[in-house]
């Protein structure tokens, strides 16, 4: 007689099954687990075991995507509309805006920001890209509202727990490169760095935060994004990190901001906007609240001492938009 195959109600056997399942799953997804531990705990000593595990077949996804594109093309043909993918790319000759930016780069000191403000113009056919971590997720909300009111298109790529320090977990330069290749972007706004106050594991070597090697490696990542944008004739606004209440971050954010600012100033198409003036009372120290000109008190930072409240995000959004002219 065939033995019963009912799932036993013996906890020990079920425990054994769960341990086997958990172990095999861990083995199959070992790389993902290593990345998770590195990102969450900054622990880099787990061995990298590379198993020949097949991923999901890409051919199926490509086939489905191709079918989707065909149906979308048919729908647009039926309606008589031109889909976004066929919008004409930016002209090869420098536009009036680009010439203004070029002229502005020759100016010295404070005049450069004024001229850059005049050059940073957005119209109803513009496309704005938001990139960054959870700080950007908060900032993007009021910024999106301002764009929505003016019927300006945008794409929000922001993603929590990401940064430039751990590209194996999430590769921002590659993501931005993909976006700039796929569509015509007019303005890229970046707000990142809250997850980058950490050592970098680069080419098998651990680079301590703030060391010369760390700064060089990190600056190169910032530079790669700026170069990409410059090659694609995309303007960039790089928003600096605000002062933090958290002591660990408070000492590190000025290092990050200095790297951003120095890199941005080397590129005529980009602008660094410090967030401290909008989010502090004295221009430099962390503030949980801020007084308004009308006599009100706004709570601008979240309870973790890092993120912004909706009011804080609105203040910072206004500060960023003050550098842009809406046509």
């Amino acid at each position, binding site marked *: 007689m065939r033995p019963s195959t009912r799932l036993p109600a013996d*906890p020990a056997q079920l425990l054994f099954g769960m341990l086997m399942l958990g172990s095999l799953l861990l083995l199959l997804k070992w790389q993902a687990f290593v990345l998770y531990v590195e990102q969450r705990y900054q622990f880099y000593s787990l061995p990298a075991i590379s198993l020949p595990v097949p991923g999901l077949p890409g051919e199926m996804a490509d086939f489905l995507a191709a079918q*989707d594109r065909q149906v979308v093309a048919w729908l647009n043909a039926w309606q008589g509309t031109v889909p976004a993918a066929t919008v004409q790319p930016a002209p090869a000759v420098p536009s009036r805006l680009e010439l203004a930016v070029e002229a502005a780069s020759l100016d010295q000191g404070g005049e450069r920001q004024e001229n850059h403000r005049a050059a940073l113009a957005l119209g109803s056919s513009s496309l704005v890209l938001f990139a960054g971590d959870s700080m950007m997720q908060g900032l993007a909300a009021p910024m999106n509202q301002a764009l929505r009111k003016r019927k300006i*298109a945008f794409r929000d790529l922001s993603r929590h727990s990401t940064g430039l320090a751990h590209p194996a977990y999430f590769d921002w330069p590659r993501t931005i490169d993909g976006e700039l290749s796929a569509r015509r972007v007019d303005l890229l706004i970046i707000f990142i760095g809250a997850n980058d106050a950490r050592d970098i594991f680069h080419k098998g070597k651990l680079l301590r935060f703030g060391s010369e090697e760390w700064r060089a490696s990190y600056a190169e990542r910032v530079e790669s994004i700026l170069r990409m944008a410059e090659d694609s004739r995309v303007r960039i606004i790089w928003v600096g990190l605000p002062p933090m209440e958290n002591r660990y971050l408070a000492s590190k954010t000025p290092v990050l901001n200095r790297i951003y600012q120095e890199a941005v100033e080397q590129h005529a198409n980009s602008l660094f906007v410090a967030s401290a003036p909008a989010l502090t009372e004295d221009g430099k120290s962390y503030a949980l609240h801020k007084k308004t000109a009308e006599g*009100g008190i706004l709570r601008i930072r979240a309870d973790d001492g890092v993120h912004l409240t909706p009011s804080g995000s609105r203040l910072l959004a206004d500060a960023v938009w003050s550098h842009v002219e809406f046509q």
Partner: protein
Amino acid sequence: MYLSPEFAGAFIALFAIYWSLQRRLAWSNRLLLLFSCGFYASFGLAMAGYMLAYSVVVHLLAKTICDSSPKYRSGWLTIGLSVLVLNLLAFKYYQPLCNQLSALPIADALWWRGLLTLDVVMPLGLSFISFQAIALLLDCHRQASHCQKLTLAQTATYLLFFPTVIAGPICRPALILLQLRLPRRLIDPAKGLAWIAMGLFKKLVIANWLATVWVDPMFDNPEAFNGLELMLGAAAYSIQIYADFSGLIDIVRGLAWLLGFNLPENFRRPYLAANPREFWLRWHISLSSWIRDFIYIPLGGSRHGTLRTHLNLLLAMLASGIWHGAGWNYLVWGALHGLACSWSRIWQIALPRPLSVLLTFTFVTFAWIFFRAADLVSAQAYLQAMFSYSQPFSYNLPGGFCLLLLFFVFHAAAERWPDWHARLLQALHSPTRLAAMLVFAWFCIELGPSGIPAFIYAKY
């Protein structure tokens, strides 16, 4: 939370120790309480400390109500309910209210402006815990048998039970307390595993894909899409929130089942409801029954005439909206459902059931727009864009409609899925069973998002 590798490892360790203590009920209950406290503490020690103190206060109130004479019992109940309700209101609405007051020009001149700048963080799951605590005090007031000989450990376990503490289901005291007091056995674990598997699939694959591909892009920038796409996007959100929330409930039911606990069903194929009232008998059943029993019926229910009945219905649904959040959009969502429930009481129009189901789904989807939007302005923007058809198409609409139809087909069989999965697991030999579960889990992780995704209802 429940989807992290840390939780998986901790739960396996709990499972091993818990069932080794099977013959010692008191010790297994203590372990359960310890694990629940540890689970809560992983979100913040201060928060966990506060909730432990909260449990002590609830227990003292419960004991006082139970032990006091009939003359004083109602007074103590009033005090207890006031403490619990004020505590919930303070945490949920203090910050939004202060934000509104702080923006006033006179705020800085107020002598009590320091109160406006207090940093108030709401403990995780407080909305659910508060409702459970209120139910406990009311059961103590009516001298329910399960409230006799209530210990502090039992009260704390009931309130902080780790499968339900984050997002429900809202359990009645009898359900948990009686199960705590009886010896537990591991019965039909395949069912628990099947629930967990279904929950993982709904959350990691369905909810995540809909959010990333359809819902988030459309709600972020509705003006960029054609009106027909936005209609389908709203329907996508209906499915997303169902998959997300019911997926979470499936996972927690499965976890509790593997520890010998039977939690109540919270969803019963809600999108097959033929009218809004029936929808609330099938959606978030533990919340809607709580509101019926502790708000609608105490207000008078349907015992004081037609007008009062409809008013009570509206107030109950407004309470449901406010419970979800302090925004006007939640209030509008609650009001829409209140009016719709009243309307369906008045107008019992005989329509073919498929048409009734379609109309109800359309109404519920329309109301979800207010729930999903960041605020009323965003909801209005989405609705306006839904009736504009000049934008080019970006999505495969026929494919989207086919997926919607497919969802309804699977939704109709939703109740049977756990039993089918469990029977399939039982029918397989051990190595095949292990391989099947491994492939399924790997498939869900491959199609799921990177990182640990959050659950929508965890924020309420």
